[in-house]
């Protein structure tokens, strides 16, 4: 019996020592991270986020753009945060978390939260610009197709729910471009594009 106990203790020490020598997040965790990025499971759309909030879900939304920009305008229920805040934040592991920023910071935050073990984490590819362009102020082109009109009606309902203002009869050339439009750039808008949209909303007193 003593021999068995010693063997078990030795096995525990060997496996424990090997655990310390292995990488912090582990190859399996890293593989899942890479697989999720490759499959596009790292981001969500502003419209999908809005629909989930409207359906009663309460996501933790972190705005990583800085206090000043946050004070000007932010997604409803979002809180300002830095990467350091995200390092310290304590939420249930199964929490639905969305992060957004202008630029690569959102993707960095996504990686940080996933490394901390949070599973249901997403970022908005085009940050607040996407929220405003797709949810807060959805636009219907003057020459809209039936498909575009149906999509607009869905997003206009979301816009009204969040206190936004849908726009109709918008010239095609002035439609907000993004990854959702054919030929729209992939990636984030320059911060100035977001700032202009926010300034327009504030001028209207919304």
């Amino acid at each position, binding site marked *: 019996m003593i021999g068995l106990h010693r063997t078990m203790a030795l096995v525990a020490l060997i496996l424990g020592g090997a655990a*310390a020598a292995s990488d912090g997040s582990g190859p399996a965790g890293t593989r899942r991270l890479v697989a999720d990025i490759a499959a596009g499971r790292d981001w969500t759309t502003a419209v999908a986020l809005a629909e989930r909030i409207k359906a009663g879900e309460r996501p933790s939304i972190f705005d990583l753009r800085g206090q000043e920009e946050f004070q000007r305008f932010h997604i409803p229920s979002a809180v300002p945060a830095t990467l350091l805040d995200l390092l310290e934040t304590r939420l*249930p592991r199964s929490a639905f978390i969305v992060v957004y920023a202008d630029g690569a910071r959102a993707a960095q935050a996504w990686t940080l939260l996933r490394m901390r073990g949070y599973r249901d984490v997403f970022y908005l590819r085009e940050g607040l610009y996407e929220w405003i362009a797709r949810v807060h102020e959805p636009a219907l082109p003057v020459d809209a197709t039936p498909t575009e009109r149906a999509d607009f009606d869905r997003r206009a309902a979301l816009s009204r729910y969040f206190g936004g203002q849908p726009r109709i009869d918008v010239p095609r050339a002035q439609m907000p471009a993004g990854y959702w439009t054919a030929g729209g750039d992939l990636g984030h808008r320059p911060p100035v594009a977001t700032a202009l949209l926010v300034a327009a909303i504030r001028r209207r007193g919304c």
Partner: protein
Amino acid sequence: MSVAPDAVAATLATAFAIGCAFGWLLERAGLGSARVLVGQFYFANLTVFKVLFSALVTAMLGAFWLDRAGALDLGAVYVPDTFAVPQAIGGLLFGGGLLLAGLCPGTSCVAAATGRGDGLAVMAGLVAGVLAFNVAFDRLDQLYASTPLGTFTLPDLLHLPTGLVVALVAGMAVAMFVAAEHLMRSRQS
């Protein structure tokens, strides 16, 4: 999101099998006896410590290395939230009850299954306590949800890599097993 009935049935069947294995191991380890459990509090019998710490270290090393092998997603493992004050009160009540009865919920089932009267009595108390708690829940819900600290694990708390924490816990467990053996031998001699 709905869960397929087959998945629920499979989960329940797995839970039943794990529960049976758990009960059998508790019984084989002698934890169906109140004397063995209470002996822990007086350092007269360290079986509880050795059995439960062995289980803890085995589960920890197994989960860690299954995750590394890609067979288990540690990130998907449920980690309960921490509510400091209600859980401290619950811990004190649980500890008091364990000392008084000599059995905890799992071991009371084992004791009852082996025909011990004290096991049946503790299980009856357990059911009565669950009923009383649920009846009084409306009055307790503020306390129940007070002092929330979120979820965190030892690596979060210590700001150390998971692998290092696994090594530290495994090393600590082995050191404590050795100390427990020495203590038992010195008591016997």
